[in-house]
């Protein structure tokens, strides 16, 4: 029974955590049986070994079940106007068949969430978000002729990421997929249904996201693993994706920023500028949520600066305080990993202004445990321009087979 049916019968509460339509396959492959809860779905942390799954992302291809991601279908005559008032960038520039990354703010210019706008067909949009947003979207809809449906449970989705992903796609019948540019959407016939493919992802590599009706989900999975065997396909869990995400420069809600509508303390939320997302703010639009506050911030200056750090040594600086040379706390690490591809100890940090300038002398305070004994190192940090991992194949069109 589908989740929607269960919800309609008001029986969904009997099961606190749902399984995605791919669960029969993911559970069979999960040899370590490690799961966590992601927006009320059970999701694999790891299938066998994080390092091998990560290696598949960068050297072959890996499949990630992203069905739990919150999705909204936005239609109606005012859909574009509604989205343009909601998000900070100009949605009119996202043409039909294209995807755009965006953030949306409250009236104070503080980021509520980030996500992607899919312009599925002329005037029909899908908004994917990290957090549940129906309440905010419904509030924002007042005065617009727009219909908003959260359809998270009605779309099964997989991320297929890595250098051989395009070859696998073509092998399952997506002829011409190599001509898709980054952020393109294409529709392919599949198993008597329609497979939507977008050249998007969370790994910073060549990769795609595949969207299909839940009843066709297992057929899609089987086709990928059948045709992908010779292309090194593997399932991946969230741990491997997390490493790839940080290398690629993507931020995560509730990790790198606290959602503004959940923040109680005034200084816990962040503006787009404070997340290094100023490029997503388009002041040429006459109105959008947060515009006045962001203009004011532009004038008066931001409170925080988001930076990428290269940290000395090999111990990830998770949740570390950042100090200046006089031992004052000047920032906090929000995400940190050892990057196998960059061969670097990388981190994101939220710095108090004016700290985080390229030649600031910064130190991360890293605690680690060996045989139950805690040790501390002060590791020198260098502010890095750009992201840690950005291979040409991420953008190359046509996509190569590798």
């Amino acid at each position, binding site marked *: 029974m589908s989740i929607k049916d269960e919800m309609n019968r008001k029986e969904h509460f009997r099961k606190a955590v749902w399984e995605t339509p791919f669960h029969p396959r993911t559970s069979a492959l999960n040899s370590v049986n490690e799961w966590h809860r992601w927006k009320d779905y059970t999701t694999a942390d790891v299938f066998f070994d994080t390092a091998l799954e990560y290696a598949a992302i960068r050297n072959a291809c890996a499949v990630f079940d992203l069905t739990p991601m919150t999705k909204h279908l936005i239609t109606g005559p005012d859909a574009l106007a509604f989205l343009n008032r909601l998000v900070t960038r100009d949605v009119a520039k996202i043409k039909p068949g294209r995807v755009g990354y965006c953030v949306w703010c409250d009236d104070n210019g503080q980021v509520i969430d980030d996500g992607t706008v899919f312009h599925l067909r002329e005037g029909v949009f899908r908004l994917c978000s990290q957090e549940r947003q129906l309440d905010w979207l419904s509030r924002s809809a007042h005065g617009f002729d727009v219909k908003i449906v959260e359809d998270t449970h009605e779309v099964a989705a997989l991320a297929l990421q890595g250098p051989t992903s395009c070859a696998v796609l073509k092998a399952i019948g997506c002829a011409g997929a190599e001509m898709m540019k980054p952020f393109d959407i294409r529709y392919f016939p599949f198993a008597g249904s329609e497979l939507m493919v977008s050249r998007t992802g969370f790994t910073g590599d060549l990769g795609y996201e595949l969207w299909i009706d839940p009843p066709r989900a297992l057929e899609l999975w089987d086709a990928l693993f059948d045709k992908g065997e010779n292309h090194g396909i593997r399932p991946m869990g969230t741990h491997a994706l997390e490493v790839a995400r940080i290398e690629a420069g993507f931020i995560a809600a509730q990790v790198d920023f606290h959602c503004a509508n959940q923040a109680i303390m005034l200084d816990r939320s962040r503006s787009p500028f404070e997340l290094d997302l100023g490029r997503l703010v388009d002041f040429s639009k006459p*109105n959008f949520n947060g515009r006045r506050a962001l203009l004011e911030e532009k004038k008066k200056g931001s409170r925080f600066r988001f930076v990428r750090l290269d940290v000395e040594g090999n111990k990830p600086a998770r949740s570390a305080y950042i100090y200046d040379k006089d031992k004052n706390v000047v920032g906090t690490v929000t995400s940190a990993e050892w990057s196998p591809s960059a061969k670097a100890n990388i981190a994101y940090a939220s710095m108090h202004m004016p700290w985080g300038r390229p030649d600031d002398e910064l130190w991360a305070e890293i605690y680690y445990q060996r045989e139950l004994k805690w040790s501390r190192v002060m590791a020198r940090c260098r502010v890095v321009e750009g992201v840690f991992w950005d291979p040409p194949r991420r953008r190359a069109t046509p996509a190569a087979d590798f």
Partner: protein
Amino acid sequence: MTDRDRIVVIGGGHNGLVCAAFLARAGREVIVLEAAAQVGGAAVTREFTKGFRASGCAHLSYLLDAGIARDLKLASHGLKWARTGLKTVALASAGDHLVLDGGKLESGTLSESDRAALAAYHAQMLRFARVLAKQHNRQPPRLGGGGRSDFMGAAKLGLDIRLLGRDSMREFLRIAGINIYDVLEEKFESPLLQGALALDAVLGANLGPRSNNSILALLHRLSGQSNGNNGFSLPEGGMGAIGEAMAAAARAAGATIRTGSPVARITLEGDVVSGVELENGEKIAARTVVSNADPARTLLSLLGARHLETGFVHRVRHIRMKGMAAKLHLALDALPAFARLPAELAGERLLISPDLVYLEHAFDHAKYGQCSPEPALEITIPSVHDKTLAPAGKHVLSAIVQYAPHDPRASGDGPRRELLEHTLGVLERHAPGLRRQIVGSELLLPADIERVFRITGGHWHHGELALDQMMMVRPVPGAAQYAMPVTGLFLCGAGCHPGGGVMGAAGRNAANAVLATERAA
């Protein structure tokens, strides 16, 4: 001066006219656009039956700001008083009426302790009301604004409360947010006195005597008496005379007033106001638009939610502004005889609210969409003092009927007929034979007040006067300084601080805010 320097005032209600007058006096080109055929808004006199005229909405003047009346020379612009300082008569069906003049009992039976308590209560409430009155002419401080004037504004308010003295301050803070029922139960024995005093706290409000905030609503009503006016007063020619005098003052200062000119929308260029468009399609360019319409109508209908931000729109949509009062106008062929009330008192302010439970029950019915079987009434017969309202020897009775259902369960004309019948039943009980004197009648339900006076929700005050909708959070947090988020748009109506009642303070404060914004630009 170019078209762009013009200031358009949407709505020729009393606040709009006061705002226009002060802006015109400051040398601005001002155009007032009034949708109705006559100016005044809720301060208006209408003919409801051939030859009989009544104040269509507000029927007593008790809040008019004396400073504004003086500055605008309303007297020389034709404002005359037919009667000032009306006494209050609490009608008892048995005939033992209480006649009150402020805190003094003029006639009727009250215990010794009630007499003393009444004097003390009246004095104390006036003292508290003075704290509110002092805020009327100040722009509320911006919460979290951090500016010097915001800090000073908040400090002045705190100081005014502190200056009440220790005991009074404690009492003020104790009762400011609570309900009139508890306070009156605590102080008085006489049910009739309690009922009458309670009615003043809930008139026009969506509050029963047991509802929190009813004390604040009372203090607002009393704040006029400490503001230098003459208590409950009747202008000659009805309340419309106030609107007319304000209009005359505005015209004399150079403002243009166009009636019958409903505005369809406020126009923008980018995120800045560019003018207004009338319902007939005419466009008027203006750099500044000041709206006397209520906040919901101004922001959601005339401007449009899409030009504002989500959080702000959400707050505006949830302003509590459901009217629960109806207005009754009766044309009578003779002066009604109230049982055992001397005829010379028939022109005073007559209250029918025999006790607290009566009043609360009246509220209960309306709260659930029904017509109160026994509504409470505030009655005036202005024709006793003012011969211009009715043919010689005939009279006009104007009453506020508390409560009318905001969302009647029944549809069509049923609720109006039902409430009229109930109201006449109550009146007949106190003035036997009154029904036979009626030659014409009109009952305006909240929906009619919404339609006729273009007030969203039909609430006189353009929004409930309550702790969460007063001063620095009126109409909504972040917009209490008259300037709206869209550059060039201001509010000047009762929906802003200091609220409703025919006062004019919101209009003058808004004019000051417009001029201050110009200076800062």
